């Protein structure tokens, strides 16, 4: 991969309409609920807001994009990267600019953030162009056993990710013992990894069964936070591997469903010795609207 040049691909996403097969889902205590906010265009929710405290299911701060052709939809989800620029092409918000803030699983969804004024004028069915670029990124200094994914190359310098000095040769891995440092809100144990295990990390998010703040053992996380999961290898399909670490961006809020919770789109995975985590429960700043110029 050393020195290879990334290409960008223009993709077409269609703003999704939420869909349910029954009006109710069942929460972890057996109570029925209406899963508002699961897909489509969610208004009034932004990066930096808590992932908890919403009367909503998997609510993401922006619009979800899909494609009616399943293969095209998988390509949309697989190629799009956090930070990629998007432009609304049709509808009342045509011409508005935004950025990819994450991805979700099942048949594939890309979550895009836009200014609230623009989101308010959008509706399901609007077309959005995504300038996809980033898969395969290997910046100079990246240790050979660490993988970056789902991340626009231009976004990396703004995130709390420190790379060891590179050799200037355009992507050569650092020597043995070199490590990436990553600032995160918290480190979750792998037993809390829920829906998303066994699925491909370039096209799915990983739900974390975190307890809400206020519950015993609960901790707050914000949309856009970087969160680490211990003992999870996300190079390809996501699964358990001892002494491995995966870091992702929190892209949607909590869910009442058992086995679900705030979801991360993975951006970094590697052995724990090469991916040093710096947790900061109070002061952490991850992906922000300002970084993506969404205001």
């Amino acid at each position, binding site marked *: 991969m050393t020195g290879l040049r990334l290409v960008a691909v223009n993709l077409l996403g269609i703003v999704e309409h939420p869909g349910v097969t029954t009006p109710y889902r*069942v*929460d*972890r*205590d*057996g109570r029925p609920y209406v899963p508002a906010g699961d897909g489509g265009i969610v208004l009034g929710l932004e990066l930096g807001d808590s992932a908890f405290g919403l009367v909503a299911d998997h609510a993401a701060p922006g619009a979800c994009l899909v494609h009616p052709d399943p293969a095209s939809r998988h390509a949309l989800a697989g190629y799009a990267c956090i930070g990629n620029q998007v432009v609304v092409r049709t509808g009342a918000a045509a011409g508005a600019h935004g950025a990819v803030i994450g991805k979700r699983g099942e048949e594939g969804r890309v979550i895009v953030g836009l200014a609230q004024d623009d989101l308010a004028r959008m509706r399901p069915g609007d077309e959005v162009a995504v300038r996809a670029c980033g898969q395969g990124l290997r910046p100079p200094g990246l240790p050979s056993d660490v993988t970056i994914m789902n991340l626009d190359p231009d976004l990396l310098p703004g995130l709390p990710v420190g790379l060891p000095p590179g050799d200037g040769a355009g992507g050569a891995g650092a020597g043995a013992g070199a490590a990436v440092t990553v600032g995160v809100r918290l480190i979750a*144990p*792998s*037993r*809390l*990894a*829920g*829906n998303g*295990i*066994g*699925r491909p990390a370039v096209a799915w998010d990983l*739900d974390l*069964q975190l307890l809400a703040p206020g519950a015993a*053992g609960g901790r707050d996380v914000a949309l856009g936070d970087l969160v680490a999961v211990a*003992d999870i*290898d996300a190079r*390809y*399909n*996501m*699964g*358990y*591997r*001892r*002494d*491995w670490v995966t870091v992702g961006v929190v892209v949607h809020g909590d869910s009442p*469903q*058992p*086995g*679900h919770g705030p979801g991360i789109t993975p951006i970094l995975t590697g052995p724990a010795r090469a991916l040093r985590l710096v947790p900061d429960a109070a002061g952490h700043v991850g992906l922000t609207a300002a970084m993506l110029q969404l205001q």
Partner: protein
Amino acid sequence: VLVDFAETEAANLTAGDAVTVLATGQGLALPDHPAIVVKNLDPGLLAAMPGGTRPDGRLEVHVAARIPAEAIGAGAGMASEYANTDLMGAYQGLGEDLSLGLEGLRIGDIVAMADTDHRFGRGYRDGYLTIGVISTGQCMLFGHGPGPSTLMSGPAAAFSLVDDSGANLASWLHPQPGPAAAAAGAPR
């Protein structure tokens, strides 16, 4: 729905054959164990399984293996009446860093999944326990593996587990080697 036949009969089956399943069991409740939800379990099979109500009121269940919550793989977050939960850490012949000591699982083994609540789906819950039966074999796909179908779920304190290497469906569905076929899940 996975069904078991004697090898001689399985040899005569082919794709498209129709098989009648006399389905019974959903909604089964144990009046002496109101905290435990039972599902996907034929009442006749339940009666054949060793264990039962102990003097202290807990439900005794014999299990061939105890599964740590770290092993729960693909299937988390899905309905517990459909499909199953794949277990990781059971990849024979692969690295030690992938192992959770589950390489010895056999199809049909009754297992206890720690900190797992399958009453209304499938998820992690501290202090809960789910009993399942391994219904599929090894899978090399990462994040997948032998999968238990859910049989019972409730607070761990409502159960009393007995480690028993004989806790396998074969012990009760095929007690004697012979030509008789038994369909897993069919009533007797």
